[in-house]
């Protein structure tokens, strides 16, 4: 199998590679991973958690001695991105939970990423320091200032190597622009601007300017009593810096062109699939609510995730998706219970592989699903400690819907709904995936022959 080309043929076997996080029971809420993202080269993998922390892993250089072990990810930097805040005006606590992380493309030796909580976006610079200047004239070795009158000769400070230190510094803070909760951030392909979206508005920022942003979408009704729809996700087109999409709680996607007008309340394209009358229920709207929208790398397609399915849409066809994949249709008969325990409101994300041929999304019981768009094959895998031996091949899982349960199958009623895989990420060019299971981060790779 050619590395870098993702296909889910019979030959693709996924193996456990690493797991990060603690095993103990009674997880602290702060450790729950809330976002996972590879950078553009796949060298770095960032996670954000409920406690406002960001942890960045770096892939180690592949060693010639260990050809069977492709580069592992080790902790590169950890920092506190957001702190809990208190909004005195509204008497509200602002959660420090990191909702999203997005990397900027690398333009110099340093790495830059955007991280956001409900209200504030921050630009972080992560840089390495492996040299230290020594031989100052005005400071002694401990850094204490020297009395200038005692200096009789001058020397030029020299740079000496030191132990590698990785520093993270906040370079910009983009605050006070969102009344509602930020659900998405997206870096534009011009690398100069980005957008942040909350329930009712989308703002466009320039990276250099923190005290001003442009509002480009506003769906807040004049009378809040008329509110029936909110924005759930938004993303820029990967190549066209004037184009972006945003999804709604009613299962619609709007594509907007910023050249058409400064305020993009009127969409350029409107994607919606007509409701299937045979599947109608009280919960139709809730399960149609889109929890994630992602452009394909090619920019030709968008993928949306609603409660039970993943859909692929062609940008040139608005009236229905070109592909629909059932993630866990066996839950369709359980919607009432899932409504009762609020699971029906869970927001699952979805990701493309590097070649746009395979899509992945999470489910319950720490299951996650992959769909090959070409072969139409799909597989269910599980992120669990039991399958955590190095290079252990993951066994496909199956949920038994009714009738006789075969060995190794799990019945719907035995699924653990507290173990949900909401966040996953796929390496941009290789078959390496990162799966967040509550407070643990699993890394899986395809088997190297």
């Amino acid at each position, binding site marked *: 199998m050619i590395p870098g080309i993702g296909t889910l043929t019979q030959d693709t076997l996924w193996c456990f590679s690493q797991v990060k996080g603690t095993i103990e029971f009674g997880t602290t809420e702060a450790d729950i991973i809330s976002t996972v993202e590879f950078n553009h080269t796949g060298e770095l993998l960032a996670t954000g958690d409920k406690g406002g922390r960001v942890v960045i892993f770096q892939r180690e250089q592949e060693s010639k001695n260990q050809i069977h072990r492709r580069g592992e990810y080790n902790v590169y930097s950890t920092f506190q991105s957001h702190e809990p805040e208190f909004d005195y005006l509204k008497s509200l606590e602002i959660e420090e939970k990191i909702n999203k992380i997005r990397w900027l493309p690398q333009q110099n030796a340093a790495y830059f990423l955007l991280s956001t909580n409900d209200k504030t976006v921050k630009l972080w610079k992560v840089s390495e320091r492996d040299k230290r200047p020594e031989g100052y004239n005005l400071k002694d070795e401990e850094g204490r200032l020297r009395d200038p009158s005692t200096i009789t000769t001058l020397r030029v400070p020299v740079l000496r190597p030191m132990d590698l230190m990785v520093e993270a510094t906040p370079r910009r*803070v983009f605050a*006070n622009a969102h009344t509602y909760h930020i659900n998405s951030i997206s870096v534009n392909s011009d690398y100069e601007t980005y957008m942040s979206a909350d329930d009712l508005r989308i703002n466009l920022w320039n990276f250099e300017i923190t*005290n001003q942003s442009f509002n480009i979408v506003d769906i807040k009704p004049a009378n809040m009593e008329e509110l*029936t729809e909110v924005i759930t996700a938004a993303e820029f087109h990967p190549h066209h810096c004037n184009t972006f999409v945003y999804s709604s*709680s009613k299962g619609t996607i709007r594509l907007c062109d910023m050249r058409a007008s400064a305020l993009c309340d009127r969409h350029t394209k409107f994607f919606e699939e007509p409701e299937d009358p045979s599947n109608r*229920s009280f919960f139709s*709207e809730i399960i149609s609510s889109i929890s994630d929208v992602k452009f394909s790398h090619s920019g030709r397609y968008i993928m949306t995730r609603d409660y039970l399915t993943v859909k692929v849409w062609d940008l040139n066809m608005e009236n229905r998706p070109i592909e629909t994949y059932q993630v866990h249709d066996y839950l369709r*008969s359980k919607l*009432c219970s899932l409504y009762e325990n609020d699971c029906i*409101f869970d927001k699952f994300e979805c990701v493309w592989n590097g070649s746009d041929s395979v899509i992945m999304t999470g489910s319950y019981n720490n299951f996650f699903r992959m769909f090959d768009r070409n072969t139409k094959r799909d597989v269910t895998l599980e992120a669990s400690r039991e399958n955590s031996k190095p290079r252990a091949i993951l066994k496909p899982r199956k949920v038994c819907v009714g009738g006789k349960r075969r060995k190794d199958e799990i019945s719907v009623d035995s699924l653990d709904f507290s173990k949900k895989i909401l966040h996953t990420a796929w390496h941009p060019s290789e078959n390496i995936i990162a799966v967040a299971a509550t407070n643990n981060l699993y890394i899986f790779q395809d088997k190297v022959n």
Partner: protein
Amino acid sequence: MLSKGLKRKREEEEEKAALAVDAWWLDPGHPDVAQAAPAVASSSLFDLSVLKLHHSLRQSEPDLRHLVLVVNTLRRIQASMAPAAALPPVPSPPAAAGAADSLLASSDAALSASMASLLEDLSHIEGLSQAPQPLADEGPLGRPTGGAPPSLGALDLLGPATGCLLDDGLEGLFEDIDTSMYDSELWAPASEGFKPGPVEGPGKEEAPELDEAELDYLMDVLVGKQALERPPGPGR
């Protein structure tokens, strides 16, 4: 709560019952369905939804998506239970005399009232931290939400703190405490410590020098010697 190993024995029967009756709004997975007639099943779903709505409304900052979805679902349930009655967003007088109807209507009234008051609160709160500028005034120009736009009132939540002060006038200053001014770097008291990053001045490489240079810059801005960075024009 779905728990491990809990089997719902009556599922298959419920599904058959649901299929036999042309009632798309019956959910066969519901535990009450097996025990009661369809009307009561909807009623328990209705109660559950009202409960969820009230729970959501009681939160200090409700999840808007959750709220909107629950309200829309509640409206659907109401529509199926009393298709004849209108469902206005504002409280309406009870349509019929029946006990169920009046229960529905009062629930509807309570629901509408709760929703109305909450959403009003939300927009009222937002109005406090926002310049009072109706959206319609902006027209096709879009809304640059800061800097120096043609109509100074459209400052939304952003813009330099000094801009907000001047536009709202003294009355605006005392109407409410706009904490964005306190949060803004320009007004951060020295005792709070200096937060790095937000205001970009020249020479931002080394930390110790940065503080002094930035403080000088800020002092100049406050004193009015130096204008703030000129923002780019709209549609850049």
